[in-house]
């Protein structure tokens, strides 16, 4: 399996932000997108995950192969850690949540309502969800926000295990994860240029 993105252009709020993006991601590999704030990394990730249509270009894998995680973890404050994870396991039709609980050291917290967790613990729970989806391509938007050093190490271990199992990871992040085997792509050069001449045409700009 290989994720191939060719000539991808994406728009935010109707305005093209990035264009002509090309990359390949083979099974067992990770790719980190970098670039200044507001360049459109989130938009690219949402497009690849199938949440919004691309302006142009091709994404070789179906959205059914991907799982997406962003700033919001989708946790329900009044459900316990275990209930939150079991729900996603049931939605994705996968089995147990034990690996996820262990992978992010949540076993001791399993009976605690998600609302009573600290910000870092919530994030860990949000990332643990990735393990119960059973999907091969992880699409991650700033996965390490509010994680401490130890938790970042946990995350990197989880990514490595995922890659070793033939998975892929595509992420946008600013910090250095210590995930040295990951390729890095700077999206800065793909910033969409304003149309050269001003056709006042079908799309407004």
């Amino acid at each position, binding site marked *: 399996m290989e994720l191939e993105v060719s000539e991808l252009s994406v728009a935010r709020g109707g305005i093209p932000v990035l264009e002509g993006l090309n990359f390949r991601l083979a099974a067992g590999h990770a790719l980190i997108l970098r670039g200044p704030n507001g360049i459109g990394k989130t938009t690219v990730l949402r497009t690849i*995950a199938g949440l*919004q249509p691309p302006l142009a270009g091709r994404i070789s894998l179906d959205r059914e192969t991907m799982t997406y995680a*962003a700033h919001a973890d989708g946790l329900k404050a009044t459900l316990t850690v275990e209930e939150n994870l079991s729900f996603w396991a*049931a939605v994705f039709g996968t089995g147990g949540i034990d690996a996820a609980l262990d992978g992010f050291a949540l076993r001791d917290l399993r009976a605690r309502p998600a609302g009573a967790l600290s910000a870092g613990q919530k994030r860990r729970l949000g990332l643990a969800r990735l393990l119960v989806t059973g999907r091969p391509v992880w699409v991650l938007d700033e996965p390490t926000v509010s994680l401490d050093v130890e938790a970042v190490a946990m995350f990197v271990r989880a990514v490595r295990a995922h890659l070793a199992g033939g998975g892929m990871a595509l992420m946008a992040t600013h910090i250095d994860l210590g995930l040295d085997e990951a390729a890095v792509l700077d999206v800065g050069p793909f910033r969409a240029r304003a149309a050269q001449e001003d056709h006042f045409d079908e799309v407004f700009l």
Partner: protein
Amino acid sequence: MIALLMRDLRLAMRAGGGFGLGLAFFLIVVTLVPFGVGPETGLLARIAPGILWLGALLACLLSLDRILALDWEDGSLDLLATSPLPLEGIVTMKALAHWITTGLPLVIASPLFAVLMSLPGAGYAPLVLSLLLGTPALSVIGTFGAALTVGIKRGGLLLSLLVLPLYVPTLIFGAEMARRGAEGADTTTPMLMLAGISAGVIALLPFASAAVLRVNLR
């Protein structure tokens, strides 16, 4: 999909889930009406079917903005949209959860409230039946409204403005059925129309709800 339904029901039962709010609102409406129109039993009996239907409709309306907005805010909706569940199924389950937590309790409690409104004895069965047939349509139409306004901050008022005109046919046939029942007249025609609206809405509207939700998510 069952997991989604169970989660929503569990959330509604937990603290702050809003279960029973609609019922309490219904009770307050029924309590306030006699203060507004006077305690005369004959008058109350005559307007009872309409007031009970209106109360049920407003109680439904009250909780519509929770159907999708909470999942939107915490990001669950994004994650659900990328899950194997079809969006049409998601909105149907959301509507079903809303009906079970809001509509069904209203149906079950309506005979009690009918006593407060001095509904004539013949009217009880048609009232309960009309609410049972009509409230699912209210939940499904409400979910469509919630899907339309999910991305709008403080969209509650707009949601009411959009949804209330859509409630007109359901209200007319539902209240008409309850009224004819209370007068001892034949309720077949409004009952069939009401059932038809509910069935049509349940079958078709989730596609529109899913379509607008998809637009709102992108």
